[in-house]
């Protein structure tokens, strides 16, 4: 097989699996319903519970906490979405579907790539919902629509990278409950000990050190600077380095786990 046709099959295999995962979403209307309600719930709760306490103490363009919050909470929701990648793969594994795929002469990465891509498509849907509700609560792109779109892309790109981490956890843990637990243990410290919901300056020194140097802070700061037109303090390129690093490490690692699964 020459390189061109091998590349073609990489894409067509990945597309076949992506389509399969998207069909699943379409056939699960209740899943779509709660996938829409959950981000709205988080957005509304965080905005009104924390908004009063935090909003007054921070300098936010437009003066509203929602402008600070939305990039952070969107990142959190998209990481929750990424978690589904691992859970879905673990479920496919216990259902024997992964065995079928592994016995086919298809590309080794397609099952994982198809899943992470389908989850990215769903993330677009989540982003649209959150931006719509956010705008009702007063969120605005302060630096123009192009940068606004760039903000969404930054978060989606991070979501795609995080899906590969979750994919590895799913393949590695092998069952749905472990995959879910493992992802939670990863997501919570990353999201809460970051600049996602509050500025990190009020955290204790040791926690600030962690918060200032971990990817979720870079993602939310990068996204925020794009949405609000504030200086990014180098967050954008640090975010890009992190995403590249995650993909370089976790794509091969998850494909390895997929191949070696028994």
């Amino acid at each position, binding site marked *: 097989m020459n390189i061109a046709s091998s590349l073609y099959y990489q894409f067509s295999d990945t597309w*076949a699996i992506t389509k399969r995962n998207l069909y699943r979403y379409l056939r699960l209307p209740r899943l779509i319903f709660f996938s829409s309600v959950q981000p709205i719930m988080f957005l509304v709760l965080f905005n009104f519970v924390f908004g009063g306490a935090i909003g007054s103490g921070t300098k936010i363009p437009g003066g509203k906490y929602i402008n600070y919050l939305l990039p952070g909470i969107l990142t959190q929701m998209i990481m929750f979405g990424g978690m589904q990648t691992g859970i879905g793969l673990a479920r496919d594994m216990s259902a024997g579907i992964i065995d079928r795929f592994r016995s086919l002469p298809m590309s080794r990465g397609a099952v994982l790539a198809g899943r992470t891509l389908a989850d990215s498509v769903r993330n677009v849907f989540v982003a649209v919902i959150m931006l719509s509700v956010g705008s009702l609560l007063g969120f605005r792109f302060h630096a123009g629509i192009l940068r606004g779109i760039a903000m969404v892309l930054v978060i989606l790109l991070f979501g795609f990278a995080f899906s590969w981490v979750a994919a590895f956890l799913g393949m590695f843990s092998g069952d749905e409950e472990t995959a879910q637990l493992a992802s939670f243990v990863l997501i919570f410290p990353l999201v809460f000990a970051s600049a996602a919901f509050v500025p990190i300056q009020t955290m204790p020194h040791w926690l600030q050190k962690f918060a200032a140097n971990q990817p979720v802070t870079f993602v939310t700061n990068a996204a925020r600077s794009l949405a609000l037109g504030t200086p990014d303090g180098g967050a954008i390129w640090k975010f890009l380095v992190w995403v590249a690093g995650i993909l370089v490490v976790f794509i091969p690692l998850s494909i390895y786990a997929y191949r070696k699964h028994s």
Partner: protein
Amino acid sequence: MTKFAFEADNVVKHFGDVKALDGVTLRAEPGKIFGLLGPNGAGKTTLVRMLSTLLTPDAGTAQVLGVDVVRNPDKVRRMIGLAGQFAAVDEYLTGYENIYMVGRLYHLSAQEAKKRAKTLLEQLNLADAATRTVRTYSGGMRRRLDLGASLVGHPEILFLDEPTTGLDPRTRLDLWGIIRELIAGGTTILLTTQYLEEADELADKIAVIDRGKVIAEGTSNQLKAKLGGDVVEFELHKLSDSPKALKAMSALAKKQPTTDESGLTITVPVSNGSKGLLAVVRELDKAGIEPSALSLHRPSLDDVFLSLTGEKASTVASQPVAAKKGRRS
């Protein structure tokens, strides 16, 4: 050298400290149904997973049509189809979408995959259910769809891992019919089963496997000969009929009929079950004896294990947890 359909040579596989396969050597001729018979945890699934490139052996080699499963798994995957114990089809896709997707993953063109899906669904009597999601399918329909998915790539070798386990007798017969049709197309089949009846009915050659070892191999008739074959058993009303009955039976039995302790139950080994039963009835009628009970016993998997290992198959399955810890079927 003849090319075997598949070949396992002294294959060993451990899971932790449990030996799932303990030096298995098997060779199958092309174009036949090869039955792998054994209880739960015998190593059947492990062997199938190995031959279908899902597992690598710890020691020994395995080949499919002369291609090593470890060194050239992709080439093997192009020649095989796999239908597992658990119907590995997607619940939320329709029957058609499932088969079409697998066709695309076998790298058929969109047109070919479409055609293949239609043909297979037709052949498997699923055409009417093609546009329904698999969630709405019955167990038998799922198995048929799973079988269909394994056939998409026109495999030369088909691995069927307990394809009928858990199905009702009618559905099982349906599936047997489909499997027989397949072999007419020249496909080699490796069929694993817990049912002697199934191996007997379908397989040209049978290997009996237990605790990761092949303990007997041969045609169904060869294995049965080893086991003593079918027996007819009947019970008399009165003991005084016994000599007369024994005399009548000795004429047709290939081995001496035996009586139990009470002398009322007589066991007659026969070479062909149903014909033997008719012959026994005829002889009893001629002798004017009316039995109080009459039955035909065919050797069961229990009998196979009893005679081959001296241990009942059912006790293997129901051993204390500690003894079968981590055993995989």
